[in-house]
């Protein structure tokens, strides 16, 4: 009696998987279609006359390597920044008592809920005054701190029993050593997973970079897609899909490698 009911739910879940995966298949299949096929034979996932033309055209028209490098640079800077500030802040909260600690913590947590638009204009002006427009650093600088990182690290650090830290203190191991040789190694799994999530999100970011990066040579991959949405000349859909497919390669690799970490660490960010 139990067996039949079970399949019903699986049917629903598989439909959701199809909904999640089909657009990806559609994207990849269109990246191998000719422009005429993408209009003519919309429905068949297997291209009628598959071609590699979009990828070679893409490489000729746009400096793929340069774009990927810009995106990689930005994503790495943002990730390293967020990890560093997250770790240091969490450690401060974890092992010290000081005046106004709760207040400062609440301020940090509330930054998650600040809408991006309220800091948009002033940050834009700051970056342009610092002459960092069209510069990857200009994009990365305002994003070097993320409260989610602080929360996750704090939660994982709270799991470290005080006895461990006290034991180290008794052997008068200096603070710095405690931080790097005890705290960080224990946090390695959550550092890896949080880092992977920060990297992927920053890799795919579109809104803030569009305000800062105006010159094609400084574009990141999501912005390069704009090149192909120009309505004046008509959208070259297959070309855009080729770029989209290339864009997801690195996040997919990171996901496959760290998938176990990522899926578990997301739980920490939520657990109250």
């Amino acid at each position: 009696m139990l067996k039949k009911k079970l399949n019903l739910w699986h049917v629903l879940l598989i439909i959701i998987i199809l909904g999640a995966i089909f657009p990806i298949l559609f994207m990849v299949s269109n990246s191998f279609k000719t422009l005429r096929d993408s209009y003519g034979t919309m429905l068949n996932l297997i291209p009628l006359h598959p071609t590699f033309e979009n990828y070679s055209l893409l490489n000729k028209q746009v400096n793929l390597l340069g774009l990927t490098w810009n995106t990689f640079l930005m994503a790495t800077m943002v990730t390293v920044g967020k990890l560093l500030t997250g770790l240091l802040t969490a450690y401060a909260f974890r092992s010290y008592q000081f005046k106004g600690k709760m207040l400062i913590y609440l301020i940090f947590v509330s930054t998650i809920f600040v809408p991006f638009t309220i800091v948009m204009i002033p940050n834009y002006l700051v970056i342009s005054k610092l002459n960092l427009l069209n510069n990857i650093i200009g994009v990365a600088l305002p994003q070097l701190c993320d409260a989610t990182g602080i929360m996750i690290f704090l939660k994982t650090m709270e799991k470290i029993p005080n006895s461990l830290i006290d034991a180290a203190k008794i052997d008068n191991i200096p603070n710095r050593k405690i931080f790097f040789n005890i705290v960080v190694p224990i946090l390695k799994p959550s550092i890896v997973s949080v880092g992977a999530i920060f990297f992927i999100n920053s890799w795919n970011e579109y809104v803030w970079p569009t305000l800062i990066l105006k010159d094609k040579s400084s574009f990141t991959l999501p912005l390069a897609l704009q090149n192909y949405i120009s309505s004046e000349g008509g959208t070259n859909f297959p070309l855009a899909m080729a770029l989209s497919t290339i864009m997801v390669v690195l996040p997919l690799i990171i996901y496959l490698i760290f998938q176990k970490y990522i899926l578990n660490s997301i739980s920490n960010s939520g657990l109250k």
Partner: protein
Amino acid sequence: MKNSKLKKILLMLGIMAMAVVFAGCGKKTSASTVKHITYWHVNAQTQGGAAVDDLVKKFNDTHKNIKVTAKYNPDMYKGLMQNLQSAQASGKVPDITQVGWAYDNYFASNFKYMTPTDAAKKFDGNNKFIDGNFTKRTLSFAKDSKGKLVGLPYSLSTPVLFINKDILSKYNIKEDSLSTWEGIKEASKKIHDQSGKYGLYIQEPGDTWAQQGIMLSHGADIQKGGKAAFASDNGVGAYKYYQEMVTSKLALHTPWAQGMDSFVKGDVAMAFTTIAQASHIKKSASFNASAIAAPHFEGHKTVVPVGGSMLAITAQDSEQQKAAWEFEKWMYKADAAVTWSKGTGYLPPTKVALESSAFKDYVKENPMLDPAVKTLDNAVPWTSFPKKGLQAEQAMIDARDKILSGSDVKSTLGAAQDKINAEQK
């Protein structure tokens, strides 16, 4: 004692990190005599981007003392204008830039620039270059409301009616019946009744260029004496005609990208849009596509606003201006102008280029260009309002959206006109 050691190290780390961050952004100063000028344009990869890069590369190779770097601005002329505004806020303006016709007055009244006539007088000593290459009509496109020449016309385009010949022949509609909007409506009705497909799609990008064309071809004026005048009977009549086609499903009302996709897919028989779409349609359509001249209402003659942009010199320092002027003149040479036209699908701006054999053979290969060249003769400057140009354009776009989703034409157009005129005091 051990804590202070930690403090020193962390402090040092902090300073070092800050230093690295700021080092990356020092001013690039090049002492050599090579003049660096920046050229802003709106040509995405799919629409002339490659042509711009070729031209700039050819120029840099042949001119040792000037180095041009081209900068692409997304979201067409509106996007470029926004970037120009932000650039001026941070004090780093380009040396030479494309300016969309719609922003002619807005550009002239908000930004510091050098007129072509001053540049010719200061650097050539005479006006020969301008008078020799441009007709009175084309120059008129680039004049502001006070008649001052702001820049030199660079890309010219006119709206044309792209047609799906297979559909037309299927429902035996003769091409010449489509020279008037009434003929188009009739054809659309026949197609819609028999196939359920849409007859017509009129482009709806981030400007009302095509819609202005319909009103002008119904005898209306968009602007008179610096004031908006499109809410006249003729203007309202034209828009009502268009609205009626949309509500009775003869014409399709949807954003530009989707509309053009539907035409290329064969779900819409005719598309009234810029000639610049020609190469894309030719490459993607799997039906027999061609183009005919922009239609007019019965009893009126075809009048269309010119599309495209002009080149304006925004460099402030005279050395930069000189280099920009030289680059501009080189861009107008026949072969450069034809390459530009081939790459973007626009019409070449100068007389010599229009009559050059290279361009003639190109038109023979791409017959769709022919109607566009003919319509050039009945093109008028694109109306751009002197004050708050961005908001004026937005008001007309909003009016279009409201009308096409059913609101009363007369009151909506009237309200938009008053809103614009309130700003023009």
